[in-house]
């Protein structure tokens, strides 16, 4: 799979983690997108490559969402001296998981400071080769982001709705509502209830956005690439937490 194809696959996925959007922050961040049934096999060498350009002293990790191979990934990180953090605190490495609608060839790519990072090394070349030769297609997407961030465990206040590249609405999550939008490419309906927002109908072909779980925490978003639509939970963001 070449890189362009890789990101076409990603854009069709429900990006549950708030990671993808944050890569454009201009900070020295780096995010790994890894498709494969056994991410733990390749995870650590890929992480070491990322640490050449981002947070070399990083040592605190956290799973933003349950991961099917969580215990294996955790074991690898702990073996290498990383420490797991839970609860509201500052972390260096956020790991998330997303299931793609369709299986894709095992592969990986990096996004650094908002752009695809064309990293080339003997290590990466051999990992790529091994992944493609010996592993079946997979719908497991592991997202690992190296960036100093605070774990957001509180609920968001509002939801920002954007279509065709511009803001359409920002609505409180406290009010139950249903809305429909027409975009240049089709239409999409959303529902806000119980402090959560989800897509309730979409004209897109894959319906990946429709099958995404509801979102409620600041930074979480659902993207419908075919409809040029995304929605994102807004603030409040925190500097730190006590208690």
């Amino acid at each position, binding site marked *: 799979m070449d890189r362009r194809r890789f990101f076409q696959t990603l854009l069709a996925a429900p990006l549950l983690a708030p990671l993808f959007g944050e890569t454009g922050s201009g900070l020295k961040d780096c995010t790994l997108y890894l498709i494969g049934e056994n991410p733990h096999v390749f995870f650590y060498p890929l992480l070491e490559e990322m640490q050449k350009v981002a947070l070399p002293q990083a040592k605190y990790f956290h799973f933003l969402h349950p991961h099917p191979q969580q215990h294996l990934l955790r074991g690898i990180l702990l073996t290498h001296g990383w420490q797991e953090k839970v609860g509201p605190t500052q972390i260096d490495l956020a790991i998330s998981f997303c299931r793609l609608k369709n299986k894709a060839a095992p592969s990986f790519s990096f996004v650094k400071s908002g752009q695809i990072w064309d990293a080339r090394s003997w290590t990466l070349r051999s990992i790529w080769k091994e992944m493609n030769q010996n592993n079946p297609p997979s719908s497991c997407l592991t997202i690992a982001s190296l960036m100093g961030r605070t774990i957001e465990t*509180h609920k968001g206040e509002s939801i920002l709705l954007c279509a065709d590249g511009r803001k359409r609405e920002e609505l409180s999550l406290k009010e139950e509502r249903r809305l429909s939008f027409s975009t240049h490419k089709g239409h999409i309906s959303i529902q806000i209830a119980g402090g959560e927002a989800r897509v309730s109908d979409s004209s897109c072909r894959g319906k990946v956005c429709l099958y995404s779980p509801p979102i409620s925490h600041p930074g979480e978003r659902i993207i419908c690439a075919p409809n040029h639509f995304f929605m994102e939970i807004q603030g409040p963001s925190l500097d*730190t937490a*006590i208690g």
Partner: protein
Amino acid sequence: MCELKVFCSPSQFKAAKEAVNAVFTDIEAHFSPESTDYSSEIVLSLYQKAYTLYLDSGGKFDISVGALSKIWGFHDQSYRVPTLEELDGAMRSVGMDKIQIRDGRLILAPGVQLDWGGIAKGYGLDLAANILKTKGLSNGFVNAGGDLYCWGTNPDGGSWRIGIKHPRKSGFSGILSISDEGAATTGDYQRFFIENGTRYHHVFDPHSGFPAKGKQSVTVVGPEATFCDALSTALFVSAHPGSILDKYPRYSAIIIDSDGNLTTLGKPVIFVSVE
């Protein structure tokens, strides 16, 4: 372990980190339960503050509860409900009236054991923040877990936004916006054990010898983290927190009672409840 955020060069940050570590190493050495230092300047200085809080709180804040912590097993995590005889014995050595200052040292009556846990962390935060400010670091915070001191502005140029942990759920009960202030939380969820369906926590009422009742958490905000720390304990224990806080007009309190109801007391503070 502390979380430290300041805006400076890498070399300044290294020096800041070392300074904060040195402060808390010092605090640990002087105020840990095993410490027998009753005469150093830092101990006498903090004792004076603790005694002020003891008087102002009608004895609800008391650093002489070390014997209670021991019989309830909180000192070594051997949690258990003590017998009434054990409780009576421990209560005979509780009360700051059993401590005197003579010839530049604290003189403890027989059996009295100090527990600085309700004030030492806040004191360390004030010391650390003062050192960092004198080093020219104009924006930052030091977060020692339950307690924090912040100064200047956050990276967005506004007040620091501090999440206050919910005492019963994951996430936060609300968000504080503060600057140049300390904040400290005392809660029944921080250290506790459950026996026969009853929750026994580590914040003792010095007048009864039992864990204080009626609240899930108390957060205090104000200019000195030392007083935030001690006041959060005093208000947690007291059935009349407003009367204590009246003596500290520059401090605010956010109280969640045992039914989960949230109230604020004292000086107005920007606090946005999450629910």
